[in-house]
């Protein structure tokens, strides 16, 4: 019948994407410490490269600070410049 509803063979997968947010804005962190390398580990991939904002959700203002902190940590040998399997 024409009035019959559409039937799916497999149940349609509805993607529930969680909205990303800037953790610094949300928790009110104003300063990112370069000496805290365990915290900075959240913002780099296994190779030690900085993750883009589109993955971490960090706002531009704090992404710049994250970058600065990671670079300082690298200079003072708390974090590697290049690595394999950091995590």
């Amino acid at each position: 019948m024409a009035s019959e509803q559409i039937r799916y063979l497999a149940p349609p997968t509805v993607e529930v994407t969680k909205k990303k947010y800037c953790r610094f804005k949300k928790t009110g962190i104003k300063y990112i410490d370069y000496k805290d390398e365990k915290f900075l580990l959240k913002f780099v991939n296994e190779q030690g490269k900085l993750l883009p904002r589109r993955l971490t959700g960090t706002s531009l203002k704090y992404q710049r600070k994250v970058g600065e902190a990671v670079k300082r940590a690298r200079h003072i040998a708390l974090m590697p410049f290049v690595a394999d399997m950091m995590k």
Partner: protein
Amino acid sequence: MQVSNLLVSFASLLKITTMENHKQYETVFIMNPVLSDEQVKECAQKFVAMIKDQGAKIVFENNWGMRKLAYPIQKKTNGFYYLVEFTAPGDLIARLEVEYRRDERIMRFLTIALDKHAIAYNEKKRKNATEKKADTVA
């Protein structure tokens, strides 16, 4: 009377500007791991004394001790870390860094100016550390 008032206001202005010249800084340096404990102490003391001599005020000092480096520096995999936080006139930094470069015992150094958020963060961190210490003792 007016002249004296003017003088007072001028003096206060001068005071403010000289105070503003004293920024708060934080410096970390890595010393060569082949040094003995005494040599490390002496080396760290030399830089602390130098900072003090040049009209700076030490806010905080912390010896991190021997640490593993994330990558080798001068073919060494370990190093002695030392951190000093101080307020100083800006021209001290250049002289301090020259001294770092001249000293063979220093493998790496980093000096940064702290903004107000950084100062607040460091103070909070220190306070937490002392409280924790007090807890463990008690």
